[in-house]
């Protein structure tokens, strides 16, 4: 599913004239932007452009026609307006850590990089709010809030580098979203550049702004509804008590049963994370986290909140782990030990690189109660194909991250790995789950979206896109498998839309 052409590549079909014309358009656009921006904000050198050819999902690569690094929201709007005037698509990118190719550039488009929009404008603990620019790193928000006794709750594994703007686009989750929710539950207000190039404020510092919840619609729209240029986020009080345990189980079945028992007991843990034996092996190799030897699975369970509540529930969780065959339960004695428990988990994706030359990080969701069954099925599917799968996941909310290991130098393994990876998604859908819990659809899973949604569902979603972006210039080709036009477009357009011309789109 990665090598197929998406219909936009210039290597197929279009004749040299069109290619030259597009290059000329980009040339004019670059020249125009250079008159309004500093020279170093507009990049068209090929070696430099190529460093932007992929985000955190390196399997997809497209060299952008131009990269622009705005310093302000106004500059960002200026870039988008220039793109609109030139009929050039644009793609927003933050830190480039996305795992679905959501920030994959467009070959004829501008990549708008927000990494220089990185000011924390305001930290208002009395209002439990912070106002930040999109390029601000997720962890930096928490660090700015800590002295006041607050933090920013969504904590994706890449929180040390992923940007808030990217989090907004992807509706990022994290290990603690079981209790605290996702980005969408923590963003109250946005300033966005619409795909028309207008700067618009949506929502605000106070809850329940009147009108449609466009903040809710925008968060998680993967850059297809515009570019966030300012984000007002909720800050959460640092908990009085955090207690973390690491429980080792003989099998993933036992760990899954323990998870279900914890949830059934009415406990809402801050996090429940599971790793299987292969994932543990990788983490040990990478960061020497010292997990119990011989474990078929480990659970990290974290409770936080008022000390009296945590005390009461933690004892129950320990008991439940033991009754579900945990052969070792370690309780973090201090922050350093807690950090070590988490270090293994948080490094797991990249660490798998030490076990296998190539791997696919899958992201799917199943109802939590189906966990043991789905894990068994994944194991069978993997065995049938002679492929190893390491499992790392947010067990509390059923979000699986199977890591499909392969070696591309071994004949046929790449194909088998990709096929297995897709089969795992089918499994998730069959059990009533989702094809993505937090990585997003992006470029990677656009063709899988119809397995979850009907054509009517997707058409309805595209009504929203068409309202924001009638010209299909904002991150086109992402999320939706079939490019569609939006019918009448406000304003003028010269000539037929390239997609229409190519006969690839049906008019919506």
């Amino acid at each position, binding site marked *: *599913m*990665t*090598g197929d052409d998406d219909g936009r*590549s*210039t*290597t197929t079909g279009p004749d040299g004239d069109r*290619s030259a014309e597009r*290059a000329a358009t980009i*040339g004019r656009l670059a020249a125009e932007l250079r008159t309004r921006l500093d020279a170093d904000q507009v*990049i*068209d*050198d*090929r*070696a*430099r452009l*190529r*460093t932007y*050819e*992929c*985000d*955190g*999902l*390196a*399997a*997809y690569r*497209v*060299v*952008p026609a131009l990269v622009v*690094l705005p310093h302000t929201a106004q500059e960002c709007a200026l870039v988008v307006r220039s793109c609109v005037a030139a009929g050039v698509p644009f793609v927003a990118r933050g*830190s*480039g*850590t996305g*795992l679905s*190719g959501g920030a994959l550039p467009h*070959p004829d488009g501008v990549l708008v*990089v927000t*990494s*220089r929009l*990185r000011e924390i404008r305001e930290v208002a603990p009395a209002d439990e709010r912070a106002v930040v620019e999109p390029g601000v790193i997720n962890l930096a928000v928490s660090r700015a809030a800590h002295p006041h006794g607050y933090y920013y709750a969504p904590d994706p594994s*890449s929180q*040390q*580098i*992923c940007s808030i703007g990217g989090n907004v686009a992807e509706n990022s989750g994290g290990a603690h979203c079981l209790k605290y929710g996702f980005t969408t539950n923590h963003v109250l207000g946005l300033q966005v550049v619409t795909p028309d190039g207008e700067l618009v404020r949506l929502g605000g510092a106070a809850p329940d702004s009147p009108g449609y919840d466009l903040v809710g619609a925008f968060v998680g729209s993967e850059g297809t509804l515009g570019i966030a240029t300012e984000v007002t986020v909720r800050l959460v009080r640092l908990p009085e008590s955090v207690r973390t345990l690491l429980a080792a189980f003989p099998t993933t079945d036992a760990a899954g049963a323990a998870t279900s028992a914890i949830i059934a007991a009415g406990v809402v843990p801050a996090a429940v994370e599971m790793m299987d034996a292969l994932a543990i092996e990788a983490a040990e190799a*990478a*960061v020497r986290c010292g997990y119990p030897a011989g474990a078929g699975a480990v659970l990290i369970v974290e409770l936080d909140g008022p000390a009296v509540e945590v005390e009461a529930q933690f004892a129950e969780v320990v008991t439940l782990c033991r009754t579900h065959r945990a052969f070792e339960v370690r309780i973090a004695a201090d922050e350093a030990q807690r950090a070590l428990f988490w270090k293994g988990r948080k490094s797991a*994706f*990249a*660490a798998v*690189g*030490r076990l*296998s*030359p*190539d*791997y*696919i*990080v*899958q992201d799917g969701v199943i109802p939590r109660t189906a966990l043991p069954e789905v894990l068994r099925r994944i194991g069978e599917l993997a065995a049938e194909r002679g492929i190893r799968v390491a499992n790392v996941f947010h067990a509390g909310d059923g979000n699986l991250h199977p890591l499909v290991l392969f070696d*591309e130098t071994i004949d046929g393994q790449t194909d088998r790995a990709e096929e297995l990876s897709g089969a795992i998604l089918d499994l998730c859908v069959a059990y009533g789950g989702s094809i993505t819990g937090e*990585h997003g659809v992006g470029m*990677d899973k656009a063709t899988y979206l119809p397995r979850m949604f009907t054509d009517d569902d997707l058409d309805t979603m595209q009504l929203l896109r068409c309202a924001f972006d009638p010209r299909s210039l904002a991150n086109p080709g992402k999320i939706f498998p079939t490019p569609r036009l939006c019918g009448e477009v406000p304003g003028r357009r010269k000539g037929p839309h390239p997609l229409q011309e190519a006969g690839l789109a049906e008019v919506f």
Partner: protein
Amino acid sequence: MPRSGRSGLIPTRGHPAPPPDQGEPGTEQAASPPDQGEPDAEPPAPPDRGEPAFDGHRPPPAEVVADCVHCGFCLPSCPTYLLWGEEMDSPRGRIHLIKQGLEGEPLSETMVGHFDRCLGCMACVTACPSGVRYDTLIERTRQQVERRHVRSPRERALRAAIFALFPYPRRLRLLRGPLWAYQASGLRNLVDRTGLLRRLAPTLATLESLAPRLTRAPRPPRRVPAYGPRRAAVGMLTGCVQSAFFPGVNSATARVLAAEGCEVVINPERQGCCGALSLHNGREEEARRFARDLIDAFAAERLDYFVVNAAGCGSALKEYGDLLADDPAYAERAAAFAARVRDLSELLVELGPVATRHPLPVSVAYHDACHLGHAQGIRSQPRELLRAIPELELREIADPELCCGSAGVWNVLNPEPAARLGERKARDVLATGASLLVTANPGCLMQIAAALPRAADASGPRSTSPRGDRGMALAHTAQVLDASIRRLPVTRLLD
């Protein structure tokens, strides 16, 4: 599917290389953010079109490049990414550029610019969860750049001046004190013409402001006997900048080692530069020459360890085995030599203390030199040694993984961004409220010392430091240990 791991799995899509009329390679330097000094009088050398960036002699290993899964965890630790927020000025971006080179792209002016801007601080190596050896990549890449890339005449002259000056303690010493000594020297022509002196001026001014501890020290003795029973025989590197500007650090190092039962072999007249600066700047042959000389200088001694008190030198010495691996005459000796190399703090913790520590009532902010922390993984040892001193209070500096901007001669080649990094570090240092800054590298010491007054000014009148315009007292770990062991008053460190 989200896939990482070995790169090159899927062919790159998008446009083929742009036609010549679009490339505009000549304008690339102007578009780069950092001030690279005065505009070159001559146009930059034409890109070597067609010829791949790297030749077969020690190219950056493709398998190391393939270890990078593009996760971006290195970005926040990279000083140039913090400065400019650009992919190609991040470790991930540089690895991508190296990959382009391995795939056959030419070694363009642009590429070289981004390689040159790497400080070589290796914070990314620490940050990388996949264990990518970026240190190997950038070192090999720099060697290729130095051999294969033709720099502008101005750049060439500046670099020549730097490498005619820094690896030579005697020449460095001429920069200190009265100007006549320098003017009388043969350095003048070389240094003046390149503008190097102007670039060095702020650093030299800083050095003069540190004057009390810069008084001319006598040449160190050839040998210092162990105090009490001899526990080990150790060689000791005096270094270039260390011996020229901070001779007191070397004396303190020798005294501390002796107090801890080491017989210290110095052989000052025989040792020269260790080659670290050359190695870290891609001057492979020069580095190999220095390395052979140093090995020879101690060839006759039976040493248990070879101690270094400058972080950058220490990390280079530990690489001697690799550096001379293809030299049949030296390969084995180099590896054996490298195996005995220890940073001072590393050895002291390994041996365990015997000398009594006396109280030093002082609050200390400890700065991890990159080549100690990131390159050698030595973070706990200096802290352990400092904490063992009664009444000394150790404070941590925020963002300890971030480079102060010194980075060998990087601050001489890139004065403006280096100053910004220095100020950032100095602000974090001041925020600790400590009265003494301790670090284990002369470059860091000078860089932060120069930045402290600027940071103190910038942070307003409320945060005036006890040291007035100098901001804060500075010392090497060895000097603090020396003061404690010798029961010196704490004022000796603070004045």
